[in-house]
């Protein structure tokens, strides 16, 4: 009887995961979807795991303690985190899921080698090895991504230039070979081998993410999400547990879809992103022409007047907006302008920021109505008739070199054609190139005026100027 109830709970949980994720892909139903999948589905799965009838010691005290500690930390962190730190947060959560899969795999190895007659046989070894490799990449890879986002480490930290991808391919082959070796040895294998295996898998995660540049973070975060899902699925294979496999695969699939979307938004193949090489190498490219070009600056009050007397303004946010935490001031300007009958829109490039949808989250936090956020195609159509485009901390996504300079690294990437607007105002801290290390001809464009300074600072001053008008 209990078995039937538990199995039913697992089944309903798996259905809720699928239904919840599908509801999560539409704005009206998203919140309900999250509750279906994340609360009810997960709750049923945990209850099922607790009461699945087995003749075992149970150790409920340990489990309940773990649930309370983990739940408490998770709840606390999720309410403390700033919206600007969301990419870091997602990276850490991915890493924890991966770490959990690594732990499960190691205990399984340990039990396998300690047992007189190991049960599970080859299947247990293969699924443990799989969970270890994928979980290991998700674990250490996510922590490297976190360190990069927090700027604890630089983009080229620990990278062997040019040959790094060969190292990575070698590591992957070693891991696959190791798996085959452990399977071949079977019960003859020993625990130290599993520990060495774990070491290599964890290092592979580091080596895998380290060469990928900051601008490619949206792809990395989506990819690591895929891995954390797949590691859960392979851990599910160890325990013959179907809800783990289904849940993990659903996450894996959604991660793959996002990864592909992000790659498309940059017009690059996944392989190209993984091999890295974005940044660093390009810096020298176009220095020659630059000297003759002129940068025009605009004064604050002049910019305020321009904005105030225009009909339509498009803000183009980028990672700089997140760094400066300028989203709320942006909204303030929107309110002032709208009160003066200026139409305000936001042009959101799919890879603006450090994770998929980063800008949407920030602007939502600042209470910007989401119909005002235009995606790439809508924005380009709108920009053609707009009066002013204000670039706040974006760089590569508005770089015209992507359209007309075949020698540029970002050539072919779909971008926001901000120069179609009548005027362009670029808020920028300095003339330093963006993270991709590529010169941006937009700054020298005849329509462009630069407003130097910290984005939040400049916008705050603009608010004062606008109010004074």
């Amino acid at each position, binding site marked *: 009887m209990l078995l039937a109830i538990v199995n039913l709970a697992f089944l309903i949980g798996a259905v809720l995961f699928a239904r919840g994720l599908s509801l999560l892909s539409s704005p009206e139903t998203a919140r309900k979807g999250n509750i279906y999948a994340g609360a009810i589905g997960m709750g049923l799965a945990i209850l099922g795991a607790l009461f699945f009838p087995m003749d075992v010691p149970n150790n409920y005290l340990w489990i309940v303690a773990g649930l309370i500690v*983990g739940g408490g930390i998770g709840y606390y962190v999720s309410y403390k985190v700033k919206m600007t730190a969301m990419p870091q947060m997602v990276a850490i959560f991915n890493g924890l899921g991966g770490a959990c899969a690594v732990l499960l795999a190691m205990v399984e190895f340990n039990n396998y080698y300690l047992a007189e007659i190991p049960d599970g046989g080859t299947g247990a070894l293969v699924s443990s090895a799989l969970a270890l490799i994928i979980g290991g990449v998700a674990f250490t890879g996510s922590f490297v991504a976190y360190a990069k986002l927090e700027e604890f480490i630089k983009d080229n930290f620990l990278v062997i230039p040019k040959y790094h991808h060969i190292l990575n391919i070698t590591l992957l082959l070693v891991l696959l070979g190791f798996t085959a070796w452990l399977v071949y040895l079977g019960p003859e294998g020993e625990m130290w081998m599993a520990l060495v295996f774990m070491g290599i898998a964890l290092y592979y995660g580091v080596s895998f993410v380290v060469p990928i540049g900051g601008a490619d973070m949206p792809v990395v975060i989506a990819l690591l999400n895929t891995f954390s899902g797949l590691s859960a699925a392979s851990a599910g294979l160890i325990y013959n547990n179907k809800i783990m496999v289904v849940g993990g*695969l659903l996450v894996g699939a959604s991660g793959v879809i996002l990864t592909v979307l992000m790659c498309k938004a940059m017009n690059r193949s996944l392989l190209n992103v993984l091999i890295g090489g974005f940044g660093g190498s390009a810096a020298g490219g176009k220095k020659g022409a630059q000297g003759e070009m002129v940068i025009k600056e605009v004064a604050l009050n002049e910019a305020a007047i321009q904005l105030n007397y225009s009909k339509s303004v498009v803000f183009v946010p980028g990672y700089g907006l997140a760094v400066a935490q300028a989203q709320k001031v942006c909204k303030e300007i929107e309110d002032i302008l709208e009160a003066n009958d200026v139409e305000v829109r936001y042009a959101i490039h799919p890879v603006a920021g450090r994770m998929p949808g980063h800008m949407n989250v920030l602007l939502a936090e600042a209470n910007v109505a989401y119909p005002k956020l235009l995606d790439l195609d809508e924005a380009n159509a709108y920009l053609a008739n707009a009066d002013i485009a204000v670039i706040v901390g974006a760089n590569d996504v508005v770089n015209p070199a992507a359209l007309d300079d075949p020698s540029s690294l970002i050539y072919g990437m779909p971008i926001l054609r901000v120069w179609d607007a009548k005027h362009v105002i670029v808020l920028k801290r300095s003339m330093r190139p963006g993270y991709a290390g590529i010169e941006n001809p937009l700054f020298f464009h005849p329509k462009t005026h630069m407003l130097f300074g910290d984005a939040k600072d400049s916008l705050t001053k603009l608010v004062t100027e606008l109010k004074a008008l």
Partner: protein
Amino acid sequence: MQTAIEFFNNPANYLWIYLLVFASILGFEIISKVPTILHTPLMSGSNAVSGIVIVGAILLVRMAQPDDYLSLSLGFLGVVLGMINATGGFFVTDRMLQMFKKKTK
């Protein structure tokens, strides 16, 4: 080759392959069209679902011998990590979606 055929002919394995294939297809189908605005919530929401790995950790602790402190403590750690992933992911997604919702009025 022989082992591969045997593996495939085993009804239990066959069922697992079915499950793997169909769960993957289902995953791709239900999330094929996502508006940009929901990229982050979808990611953090599905991230929470990958906390399902906690089920394995719970089973591990339940099966451990009461004096096997290695398995118990690693399993405990697994439960903690999985639970942070699941609850943290859920609440942070809910927090984000609440922000999205306010402005539809």
